[in-house]
Structure formats: C-alpha cells, structure tokens
C-alpha cells in the first residue's frame, strides 16, 4: 500500500529513516478554568491540609530529610505536617523551566508555558497483537513497536512506556527504557519504582548521556512517581524519586485522586487532596536537592457510584485542565491529563467523544507536558490503531489553535475582484498555489476508489502497518546499546531473573 501523504521521502535501503520534526501545540489562545481568587483559595486549602492533616511518607530517609528541614514528623504514623513557610521556601528552589533532552538534540524539549508536548499513554497491561489482532498480555516488544510509531508521529513529543514489559518481571521498567531508547530518538519518561531499579535506570541514562555531567545538563530520561490517595506516598516511589533527583533526572510527582473513594466527591476537594500529595513530594525533593528539576501533575478520576469502578471520563472534564493552572500558580511546570479513553476498544464513538475536547482545551490551558495518546479501556489496552486516531484528534486541535494569518496574500482581494460575482476560483494561479497546502488529509478524508471517503479506522490500521514496515529511526550507537544490555543483565541478576 501507499504511505501516508505526508510521509518523509523513503531513505536508501538500509539507511535509517528521518524522524519528522516535532509539532507541539503552541496556543496563543488561552483559557483560564480558574480565576486568580479561586487559585489562591485552592492553594490556601492545600497549605492548610499540609499543615494540619499532613501526608504519610513511608520512608525513613524521607522522614529524616523532612525532619531535618523543619517539617513536623510523627515517626509512629509516618505522617509529616508542613509549615506553610517551609513549603513556600522549598518550592522557591524548584526551577520553572528546564530541558528534557532527547538522543537527538533536535528533539530536546525546552519546557515553556504555552508550548505543550504530548506523550504516548501508559502503562497498559494488554495488547491487541499487531499481527494476529488477538488480545494478549503486553510485552517488551510492544514497547519497541510503539516507540517506533511514536518516533514517526510529529504529535508525540516524548515517550511513556505505552505498555508494561510483563515478560521481564521485576525489571520490566528497565526493559521498557531499553526498548524505547533503542527505537526512538525522542525523550523517554519512565515509571521506575524502588531505589535498586532507579539506580540501574540512572546508570542507563548516564550511558545514554555520555557522562554524569552531561546527564544533568541534558537528561535523556525523566521519571514519574505516583502518590497514593488520599495523602500518602509510596515507599518505592519515594526511594526512586530521591535516587533520580540526586542524579539531576527530572521527576514528576503525580496524584491520581478518585472522587468518592480516595478523594472527596467534589472536584475542588479532589484537586486539593491531589495537590497536597504532589506538593509534599516536590517539597521533599527540593529540600534534599535544591533546584532539582520537577514537575506537577494531577489526574483525577471518578468512582462509578453504581459499581465502584474507575471512570476516567465523566461529562465534566474541567478538572482535567484546571490542575495545569494550579501547577503554574505554584511556579512549577505541569503535566496535563489528556486522552486515555474508557472505551473498551479503539475507533468507536466513545473513544472519539471522550478525548475530542482534550488536546484543544488541554492545549489552551498551556501545560508544558501532556499525556498521553494510544490506549483504550482506561489506560490498560493497547490497540495499535488507537495512537493514530488520537493523533488525528490532536492535529485537528493543533490546527484550530494555530495563529490565523491575515495577510494580503491570504485575503486574496485581487483574486476575488478578478473572479467577481458568480464566477469560480478553480482556474486561478492563487488557487493552484494554495490548494497544495490548504487541505491536509486527516484520517477522515482519504478518498475511496469507488468515490466518497474511506473508513478512518481502516485508514488508521493501514498507517500503523506502513509505519512498522517503513520507519526505522536512527539506531542507538552499538556501544551504548551493548552497555545497556550489560546493565540490564546485571539488573536481572540482582533484582529478579528474567522470565
């Protein structure tokens, strides 16, 4: 089959493919979901929770650091209460911007408000097999496949492990890094937990960067640490976060409060609980390593009142985008929450309607980082075509938010005058020049041989096949790849035998 219209030229046989330049959402049109007074009220509420209720830190090292810096530590309950001035002082050290580097410097992400880099979704556990279309547990090779697809898509600024490398047991998170960095030149963000795996991940990142100093300067990986709602951290998460922060690797603190079970059943209450978790984790990292790069993320969900099940999308998505403003109010970069439909499969009405507002309103909120395209069934199922469908929704939003060019050339008054009332523009030179660029065919406007347009889901599946067959990004240097393999082997021996 033919490749997509916008495919880069085919490389010479055996030569690596060109990775298309990134196309982040740059929105000069902004929307505020919360006004300044509301943001202050939310911040004040977070500070009160931190000071009066506290957050549980099940890590002796974390408790020690926090106690040394003036937080009120209850060793028995492991609950830490934070004076407001301590919080403000610690956050004052957090950088507002930094660089998340890529293997190829052209794909470095220099974080700035209003330029939003999106990622693949993560971390699913099941895959619709790329070839057999049968559902099976996810594995390392799926991460590699998705890394190649992510490398090809201009909408993907950096990569999450889309699914878990479940064929590698206790070291799966390290194998996910290996699969990704061998198949994309873009930045990788892992979800490594525990001090042992984190130390190995830092070793891998050091190999990729070339040295410890280069790692601090241009970290090619970052890590995301999830807290446990309500108001608690995870031991393994804290230990990993401290290891990464020590090495200068950016760490994101993510809270996932669920309305009605692990958080109050109101959006504002849930955001306060999530914010208190995130801020307390960031305070720990800033007290331990002042100035270490961090980012803030809250991804809210609901408990289905009938079943208790986890619902990612209700009819009200305000709390998906409002946390971006909360992060920015604290002076922190934000990772926004987009995509990740609850639909059981890709390409359905539900898979479209739930995510259709996301990149538009997410982009207008102005987060630096945004997750994540390509999973169904509430972040658990990888359908290969899902990322292509999500990419189409993304590009629709990106185009809608581009600055409109109102110039003499685009207004075309001379052409309008020369055609006059009742004529047509088909034969105009201006039309020939601009039609080449004025219609980019998304998935929805691929012509069918018999007339009309093709089924966009079918087109998406073909795009996946085309990318798998044709896109082979610049490989990782052989020596670095071999070194990563050695680190993985050591990690497998130390942390758990591979299956």
């Amino acid at each position, binding site marked *: 089959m033919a490749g997509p219209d916008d495919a880069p030229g085919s490389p010479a046989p055996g030569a690596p493919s060109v990775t298309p330049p990134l196309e982040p959402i740059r929105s000069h049109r902004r*929307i505020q979901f919360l006004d300044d007074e509301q943001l202050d009220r939310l911040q004040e509420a977070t500070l009160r929770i931190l000071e009066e209720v506290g957050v549980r830190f099940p890590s002796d090292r974390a408790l020690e650091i926090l106690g040394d810096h003036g937080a009120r530590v209850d060793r028995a309950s492991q609950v830490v209460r934070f004076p407001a001035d301590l919080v403000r002082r610690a956050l004052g050290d957090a950088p507002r911007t930094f660089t998340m580097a890529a293997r190829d410097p052209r794909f470095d992400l220099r974080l700035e408000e209003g330029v939003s880099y999106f990622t693949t979704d993560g971390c699913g556990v099941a895959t619709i097999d790329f070839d057999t279309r049968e559902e099976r547990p996810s594995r390392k090779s799926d991460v590699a496949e998705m890394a190649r697809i992510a490398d090809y898509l201009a909408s993907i600024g950096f990569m999450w492990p889309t699914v878990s490398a479940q064929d590698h047991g206790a070291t799966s998170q390290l194998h996910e890094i290996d699969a990704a960095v061998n198949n994309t030149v873009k930045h990788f963000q892992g979800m490594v937990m525990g001090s042992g795996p984190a130390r190995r991940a830092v070793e891998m990142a050091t190999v990729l960067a070339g040295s410890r100093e280069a790692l601090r300067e241009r970290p090619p990986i970052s890590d995301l640490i999830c807290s446990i709602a309500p108001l608690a951290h995870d031991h393994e998460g804290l230990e990993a976060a401290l290891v990464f922060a020590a090495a200068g690797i950016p760490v994101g603190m993510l809270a996932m409060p669920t309305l009605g079970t692990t958080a109050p059943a*109101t959006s504002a209450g849930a955001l306060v609980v999530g914010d208190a978790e995130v801020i307390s984790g960031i305070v720990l990292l800033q007290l331990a390593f002042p100035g270490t790069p961090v980012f803030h993320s809250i991804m809210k969900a609901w408990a289905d009142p009938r079943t208790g099940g986890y619902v990612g999308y209700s009819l*009200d998505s305000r709390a998906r985008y409002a946390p971006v403003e909360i992060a920015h109010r604290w002076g922190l970069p934000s990772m926004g929450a987009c995509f990740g439909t609850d639909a059981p499969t890709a390409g359905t*009405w539900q898979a479209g309607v739930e995510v259709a507002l996301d990149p538009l*309103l997410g982009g207008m909120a102005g987060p630096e980082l945004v997750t994540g395209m390509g999973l169904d069934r509430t972040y658990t199922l990888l359908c290969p075509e899902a990322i292509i469908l999500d990419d189409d929704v993304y590009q629709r939003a990106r185009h809608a938010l581009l600055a409109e060019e109102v110039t003499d050339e685009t*207004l075309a*008054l001379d052409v309008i005058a020369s055609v006059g009332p009742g004529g047509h*523009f088909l034969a*105009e030179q201006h039309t020939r020049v*601009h039609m080449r660029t004025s219609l980019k065919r998304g998935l929805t406007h691929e012509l069918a041989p018999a007339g009309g347009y093709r089924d966009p889901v079918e087109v998406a599946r073909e795009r996946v096949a085309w990318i798998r067959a044709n896109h082979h990004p610049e490989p990782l240097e052989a020596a670095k790849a071999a070194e990563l393999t050695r680190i993985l082997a050591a990690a497998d021996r130390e942390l758990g035998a591979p299956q």
Partner: protein
Amino acid sequence: MSSTPSLAPIRPARHARFLDDGQLADLRAATLEILEEVGVHCPSRPVRALYAEHGALVDEEREVVRLPAALVLAAMARAPRGYTMGARDPAFDLVLDGTALYVATDGCGIEVLEPGGGRRASTAADVATAARLADAIPAVGFYWPMLSAQDYPATAPLHELLASYPNTVKHVQTETVMGARPARHAVEMARVLAGDEATLRARPPLSALICTIAPLAQDDEGMEGALVLAAAGLPVGFMSMATAGSTGPATIPGTVVAGDAEIVAALTLVQLVYPGAPVFHSLMPGVMDPRSGAFLATPWENEIAYVVGVELAHAWGVPTLAGVFGTDARTPGWQAAAEAAVALTLCSLAGAETGSGMGLLESCTLFTPEQLVLDADLHERVRCTLAAFDTSREALALDVIRAVGPKGHYLYERHTRDEMRRRRFSPLTGQAAPDGRPIDPLDAARAEAARILAEHHPEPLDDATARELARIVAAADREAEAAAAGAGP
C-alpha cells in the same frame, strides 16, 4: 402529554478571543472593499431597485450592486445586537444576549437511515418525528426542520413548519422557506402562533435562514422571501457556504471575507429597508477536495473558520448562527464525535448566541434518531466542561479531608453520598445489561431515541391554532397547484 425538559444551553464561565482587533479590522476592511469595488450579483429586479433607492450603486446590465462603505456601516449600525426568539411556550424563549449558546438541530436532510441500514427519502412525517425527539432533548435549544418534506414537493418548506409546531414547544427556524409567496404564508403561520402583532414582534416563534450563493451572489427567491419575513419582524439570517478553492479563494481568510461580503450585503439591505429588524450572520465555509471537488466542512484547517465567523458577526454588531456539529461521517461513530468537538468548543468560547446543528450525518443530509442523542451527549460534555468551577467551602471539603486523613477512604462520608449524586456521567457510556455485559453506547443511544419516541408527546397545539395552520398550508398547496396548472402545456 409529556412535559418538555428545560433547555440546557452552553453557558461558558469565560469567553475567549481568537482573532486580535487588528485582524478583525483587516477582515472587515476587506469586506468593505469587496462590497464597494466588486459588489454582489443581485438577480432580482425589485431587490436591485430597493438597493438603488437607498444609495447603492447598481449596474442593471450586469445585475451587480456595489455598496459604498459608509452606506454599509450606517445600515449595520441599525441592526440590533441582541433580541429574543420566541417559543410556543415562553419558558423556551431564547434570549440572545451573548451569555448562552443555543444549538439547533441540523437540517435539511433528505434521507432517513432505517434500522436495517436501508435508506429512504424523507417525508413530512419524519419532520414531525424528529421534532418530537428534539423536544425531549435539553441540548436542543431550537428546532430546524431536520428533513425535507419531500412528499409535498411544491410546498415542502411550509409542510415542514406544519409538521414541526405541533411536535415541539421550542422555537423553530426555517432554512428552506424561499420566495415572497411562501414567505407570506410562513408569516401568516407565525402570526397565528404568536396570537397578536405585538407578540409576533416581541417573541417571534419563527425565524429564517437564507443562503447566499458563493461567490458574491444572491438568490432572487431568497432575498425576496427575506424581505417579506423581515417586514413582519421575524429574525432573518444570511448564511454563506463559500468553499475554499472553488467558490472562494484557496485560503481561509480569502474565503472568509468573500463569504462575509455576501452576508453583509444582504444584512445591509434588510437594515436599509427595515431599520432595526432582527438579523443574524452565519458564516459556514468549507474547503474543496481538490481531487473530487466535494465540499468538506471538517478538514483540520477549516475548524478555525467557524470561530472566525462568530467573531466577524460580533464585529459587525449582530448575533451569529455558528457552524457547529455537521459531520462528513456516513455512520454514527468515531468520526462524527471526533469532528464535532472543536468547532462547538471554540464557538462556545467565542460567545456564539446560536449554532446549528445536531443530528445529521453525511454532510447534513442523512437522519438517524440516535445521532441526535449522541450529539446531545457531546453538547453536554462541552456544557459541563465550560461551566464555572466551584471552589466553595462545600466543594473544597476541607473538613471531610481532615476527618478522613492520610490513607483513609471517602466511601462512608455523608459528603460523598450527597455529592456523588450531583456528578454528571454519560447515560450512554459504561452501561451494563442485566447480565453484566457492557452495552455499546450506540445501542444505548438507539434505545434512548426509541424510548423518547414511544413516551414523549409534548403539549399539543390548541385545536384552533392547529386548524388555522393547516388551512394556511392547504391554501398554499392550492396556489401551488394552480400555478403548476397555469404553467402547464
């Protein structure tokens, strides 16, 4: 008889601007330049005479009317910025004041998708069925007859109105009434519905949308009908569907100003002849598929054109009918959802007063009841998401957070029980059958449409009004028959 649920328009907590003042000024200046130097083709002699009478420059030979900028600006200054579009039941009146976006159904389709996948030509009965469905859906602010009454070829637009009014208490906007004679019948129907002249003007139960012809041309029937409707005080809007590459330049700004010039030329005439008449502006441009020549409403690049249309309307000082929904998809599914969200969200944020429309597939031609239910679900998502965020003491729930503390849970809290009832979940997603199997949202939508059509019977028209409307349309039928006989061999 069933009660019609209250309207649920989109009331964004905040508005946003998409073009800056300089860009809007450039677009308006371009429109004025086109109107003054190029003009519009006006094939109706009486309409040209009206233009000439009020100071336009008319070339009778070419049937082209040119409008000096000062004339346009003076005329447009008379147009009201807001007004009320009345409904049969005053609780459903639409106050166009910029705080809410009321979305209509789509129109005017020509085919009905049958449950088995077959298709058939639409009839007046389908218009009635769709009106009853729309009446029960709070997201539908007003009703466009969704389908053509093709069983009455000569007087279809009037039969569409006759089928609509008994089946919805909401405002009705016709997009098919053209020509002075049908317009006079439509005005008679509106007068009967309003009951008296003052109500007709204060709360008109009918409005009309008239299409211009790109590039830069008017339809004689459209303009002559528009003047009849405007004379009676019924809100009249003009819509351009200029298409980049064929009937407009191959750039969005070029197509926008060409379309805007068509609309403003028509609005100017209405204001010259009937100063202060309620009017609206509707710009729904498309892009030509260069390989097939087809009109495409939903390419990525074209989404912004709809919100530019909204801002241009406001720059001219009139309300807008924004292009929202309207998918090129052939069946309900991913495409119809993915295509509809952006324009609806952006036009809401831009402060659009009205929009059209929900419920049709295949570029506004194909009706299936579940699509209206599905589009209403998307409308509800945008409505909820753009509403004001609640940071009240009750919403912040600090006392509850304090009581639960770290690592507890909120399941037993009274606050949880009370507040979970207020959270809004889609009735179409996450549903399970009694045996636990998940229900496909499309099946849920079909079931909901079927339930509404089985159970919902809005407040009927009183007998006298119903009889009078029927008499007006019967008279129009007889006139049409006589005209056809007269025109015969």
